């Protein structure tokens, strides 16, 4: 290295501030790290508390024909043992569920009526947090209040028939009451339904079904399982649906 170069380097070194005139890196790093960890911990705690409050809100009674917290509602418990169990997971705000209902709803209702399948419906409410409203939760509560009066399936059908064109518009309480009328509840039955709905008598059950389904890996709707085996919806026709149910009958 030439002497000029050495001189130049020495001058550069001399001109560099030596630990003066700058912020203390350790202090800044500590502040940033503490703030970041505090923010993450706070976010986890706030979300966890919110979830726990949701799970504990409303009544804790099981709707009629719901065997346990977290379990789906058995629409036709009188079905004989040899018929397959058809599990259905829906969210009342899910457009794909409404279109599934449009194609297969009547067929499914017929199979249930004739006890060709044991229909178990798991009503989810996860779309509320996606869409930023509470309509899935309220509609689920409303449907289980209808279930107490053996009107679950007609209520379920009325909700999907009345689903708003645009996803996220949700349902008003007035609409949910209208659906009760469409499901055949009148007079005293309608009053009982109304009381049940206003008290959110089955809300903890609604939340438990959502939690259990997520634990079971169901995080999209509609999902169907025939005797516990996933039913492929792509390319499903009423004919192939009927054939699969027949094949699963013992």
């Amino acid at each position, binding site marked *: 290295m030439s002497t000029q170069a050495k001189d130049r380097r020495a001058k550069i070194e001399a001109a560099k501030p*030596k630990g003066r005139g700058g912020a203390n890196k350790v202090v*800044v790093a500590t502040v*940033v790290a503490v703030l970041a960890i505090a*923010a*993450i911990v706070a976010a986890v705690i706030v979300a966890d508390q919110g979830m726990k409050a949701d799970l504990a809100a409303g009544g804790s009674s099981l709707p009629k024909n719901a065997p346990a917290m977290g379990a789906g509602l058995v629409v036709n418990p009188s079905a004989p043992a040899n018929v397959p169990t058809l599990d259905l997971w829906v969210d009342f705000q899910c457009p794909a569920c409404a279109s599934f209902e449009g194609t297969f709803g009547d067929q499914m209702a017929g199979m249930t009526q004739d006890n060709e399948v044991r229909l178990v419906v798991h009503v989810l409410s996860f779309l509320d947090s996606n869409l930023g409203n509470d309509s899935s939760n309220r509609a689920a509560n409303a449907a289980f209040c209808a279930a107490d009066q053996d009107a679950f399936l007609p209520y379920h059908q009325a909700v999907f028939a009345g689903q708003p064109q645009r996803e996220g518009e949700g349902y008003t309480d007035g609409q949910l009451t209208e659906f009760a009328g469409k499901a055949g509840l009148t007079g005293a039955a309608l009053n009982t339904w109304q009381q049940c709905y206003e008290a959110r008598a089955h809300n903890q059950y609604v939340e438990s079904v959502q939690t259990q389904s997520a634990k079971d890996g169901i995080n999209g709707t509609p999902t169907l399982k025939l005797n516990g085996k996933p039913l492929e919806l792509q390319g499903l026709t009423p004919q192939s649906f009927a054939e699969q149910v027949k094949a699963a009958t013992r």
Partner: protein
Amino acid sequence: MTTLSDQQPAATPARRLRWNPRGLDAVGLAARLLLGGVMLVAGALKVAKPEVSARAVQAYQLLPFDLATYIGYGLPILELVLGALLIAGLFTRTAAAVSGVLLVAFIVGIASAWARGLSIDCGCFGEGGTIAPSETRYLEEILRDVGLLLCAAWLVIRPRTAYSLERTLFADER
């Protein structure tokens, strides 16, 4: 002797351009803004909906359910912090290293979901959960994360970048 050493860089302009520290600082700046920008957007899109983020993590079915839930709650904030640090150019090497670890975890998660035949959205920018098999974008998601991982690797190896807050703040970074 002096003439030789003075002539050498001029004789190879291409080489001088390639190793120009200012050029490298500019590459670092681009890597920082790209990685930081994506982290910031990913965090911002999920931070207001912790339940959705939790479900996106649960949908991978890789971690115990409750752990997945907590990670889903905390991840958006971590992404926001890393994004802000990278964009500002503060503790670039550490922020890039942590981002790199996250990206490796994301790539492993997506590849494993793909290999196990799940059909989920990666949930990288909100949403997440099960989608139709025809709607999965596993390859795109992995390639995007590999690109970002390269940005992170650059910044870990050479954290010095143009217009960084750490050069303004800390004397020993100048």
